[in-house]
Structures are given as structure tokens and as C-alpha cells.
């Protein structure tokens, strides 16, 4: 066993995902590697010594000293506005991890996977999709991605042409693109049952997003017959959304 040490991380690149979310590419010397689905603790310290911490999911699979986080700006928040608006390439934060040994996908797993994302909850699920690609895994994957409107989509280019064996279903809750068949509205059982892959197919389910979304999505999965023990959840925010 080893103690999780705080490490200095330097911002090396920024990718804008949406007007209110960005991906931070950080270089972390000595990073021990991680599994898709795990998160890190980020610690910010002000000049007067005041410091505060928050958790952020790792957005990509293990890649040497580089880690990627995608941060959604929460208006009035203490940390996310700093990470999304103030921090510039070359700036440093402290980080420790990887944390979490439950909400993870192991690249050797062959079981089908159902990923259910609400908003920023897509971040650790994208790490799983990317880890699947890196590993050359053929495990069947399906992503159901609930978002407010098309402008909120993270990783839009990458998900436009999904990897073979990855099926992507988008659920728009407020505004759908022109010509989109599904009417805007909250996630339903039909969205989750959609692909014709029944619960008897026994996928491992990973659900991530704001608390209200995760509560609802997990409840729908149970009502569709998914075994509760196969549904792993990660809750990001305090409120529903």
C-alpha cells in the first residue's frame, strides 16, 4: 500500500468543449497511471495559504505523465470558474490520485457495457470509451448521452463517428437539432431500452451525472430488469439537472 501523494500538475494545453466547459491537459511528473472511471482530487492554494479541494474525473485512459480533465463551469462556484476561465497554460495546481476502485472499467473485460451520461457525467464514461479504443477491445459498448441542447455536447467530433462496436444515443432535454426524431424531454425507459439490447444481455451499467439524473436513470434501469449489482453510479453534483 502506498499513500496518495500530492503532485504538482502543470497545464500544457486547453481544448474548449463548449462555451462553458473545457478540457485541461496536465503534465504530472511521476503520475502512477490509472483506470478509466477513476478521478483525482485537485487542490488550489491562494497566496495567503488558503486552499480548497474538489474531485474531477479523468477524461482519458492512462497516458504516461499526461492526464486530462474536463471541467464544467458552475456559475458562482469556487473552483470550476478558476479552472475554466482563469487558469492558463503554464499555471500549476496540485493533484492527487487516482482515486476510486469501483466506478472503473477494466480493458480486459469482455462483458457488454451500457454507459448512461447526464451532462458533465460523460467525462469518466468517455475515458472508458477511449480506453476501449486504446486497448483494441471488442466489448460491445453503448452510450446514452443526455444533454440540454446540441451546444452542450462534449467531445462532439470524436463521438460523431463512433468506434466500431460503440453505439451512441443522444437524448436532448430542452432543444434537439432540426430533424431529430426524438422530442426534447427527460430520459425515459424507452431511451435506455432503445437499442434492442435487453437486460438479459446483462451489460455492466455505468451511470454518471448530477445526483437527480443518476437517481432517475438508475431507477429506470432497475425497472427495465437490470440487476442492481451491475449498475455502478457516480454522482457529481448536489442537485438534479
Amino acid at each position: 500500500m502506498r499513500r496518495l501523494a500530492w503532485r504538482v500538475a502543470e497545464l500544457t494545453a486547453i481544448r474548449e468543449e463548449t462555451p462553458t466547459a473545457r478540457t485541461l491537459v496536465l503534465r504530472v511528473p511521476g503520475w502512477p497511471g490509472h483506470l478509466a472511471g477513476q478521478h483525482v482530487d485537485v487542490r488550489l492554494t491562494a497566496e495567503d495559504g488558503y486552499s480548497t479541494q474538489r474531485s474531477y474525473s479523468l477524461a482519458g485512459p492512462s497516458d504516461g505523465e499526461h492526464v486530462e480533465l474536463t471541467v464544467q463551469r458552475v456559475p458562482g462556484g469556487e473552483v470550476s470558474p478558476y479552472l475554466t476561465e482563469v487558469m492558463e497554460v503554464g499555471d500549476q495546481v496540485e493533484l492527487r490520485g487516482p482515486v476510486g476502485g469501483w466506478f472503473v472499467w477494466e480493458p480486459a473485460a469482455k462483458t457488454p457495457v451500457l454507459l448512461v451520461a447526464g451532462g458533465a457525467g460523460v467525462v469518466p464514461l468517455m475515458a472508458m470509451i477511449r480506453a476501449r479504443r486504446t486497448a483494441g477491445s471488442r466489448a460491445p459498448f453503448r452510450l446514452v448521452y443526455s444533454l440540454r441542447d446540441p451546444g452542450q455536447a462534449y467531445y462532439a467530433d470524436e463521438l460523431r463517428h463512433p468506434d466500431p462496436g460503440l453505439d451512441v444515443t443522444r437524448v436532448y432535454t430542452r432543444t434537439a437539432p432540426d430533424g431529430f426524431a426524438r422530442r426534447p424531454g427527460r430520459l425515459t425507459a424507452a431511451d435506455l431500452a432503445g437499442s434492442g439490447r435487453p437486460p438479459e444481455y446483462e451489460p455492466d451499467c455505468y451511470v454518471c451525472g448530477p445526483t437527480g439524473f443518476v437517481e432517475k436513470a438508475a431507477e429506470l434501469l432497475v425497472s427495465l430488469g437490470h440487476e442492481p449489482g451491475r449498475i455502478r453510479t457516480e454522482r457529481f453534483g448536489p442537485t438534479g439537472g
Partner: protein
Amino acid sequence: MAIISRGFRGRAREGGGKLPPGQYLTDDFPVLSAGPTPRVDTDRWEFTVETESGQAHRWSWAELLALPYETPTVDIHCVTKWSKLGTTWRGVSLDVLLEDVESAADYALVHSYGGYTTNLPLEDLLDGKAWIAYRYEGEEITPAHGGPARLLVPHLYFWKSAKWVRGIRLLDEDWPGFWETAGYHDYGDPWREQRYQDD
């Protein structure tokens, strides 16, 4: 020495001495759980204490409600960094539940409807430090927050306060629970910031 993040100022320093290291204050009540929320019917609810010699003590929902209760007002600290000060609960002290239980065990493994487990030294459940809580701020505890009843052990990180509590096994040896096997600290004292293994 911690490194300074350029341009980070932070919010007004709040909480005074009531906030353990690395925690921030929230007025919300966030949720941390590993899976779907189990729905537990109080008609079929029961709470069991099983000793190291296999002796079992059981309480139905009605029996629990008939026991003398307390209304502790406590601060709670979640390992995901939020803290909430001055929360008020109603519940039965573990001192009451364990009063007639004969045991020489040193450890407790708490288990829940839905399969969750968490471990702690038995002494952390005694002497007015822990309750089986069934009301929060004057209302029933909602399923998302662990209702109908949850363990309340506010001096440890809140994952030790098992939601949907179903029973406690008293053991001679320490037996790691769910998060404790997944990289989190065995004891979880927020004031010593024992978040992860070997912190």
C-alpha cells in the same frame, strides 16, 4: 510547502474552526452512493445485531420507533469534500440497541439493504457517538439519503454512516467494507484527513 495557483483567490474563508482540512461548506445535501437507491418497505424492514458467537438480536420498524430516541444536532463531513454544519436527526442511540447484547468483539461490520457494507471499531459506535437515524430535519429520511433508516456516526467521514442500514455484525477482527476495499481509509477521521488508504 503547497504550491500557489496563480490567480486563485478562493471564496470568503468560512466555517471557522468547524471545518476539517480540505473540506468546504455546503447548504445542499449531496449524495454519494455506489449504485441504484434501494427502496425498502418499512413493513418488511428489520435491523439485526449479530454477535461474534452468532447470537442475533432483531428489531422490526415498529420496535425501533418504540425505543427511546435522541435528536442529535451534528456536523457531517463527506469524503468528496463537502461538509454540512448543524444537521438535526432523530434516531436511537447504539448504546440503547447494544445494551443487552453480550459481546467481547472489537469491530463492527455494518451492512445495508442493497449490499453496501462499512467497517469501524465497535467503540466508535458506543458512548453517544452513533445512532440509527430515521428522521432528518423533522422529516422522514428520503431513500436517496438512506431512508427509511441510516446509521449516523458523524465523527467519521460520512460513508461510514451507512444508508439503508440493515444490521451490524460484531467481529473479533477488522473486516474491510465496500469503500474500504476500494481504496478508501479503514478508519476515516476527517480531522486527520484520512480519506484514502494510508492517509
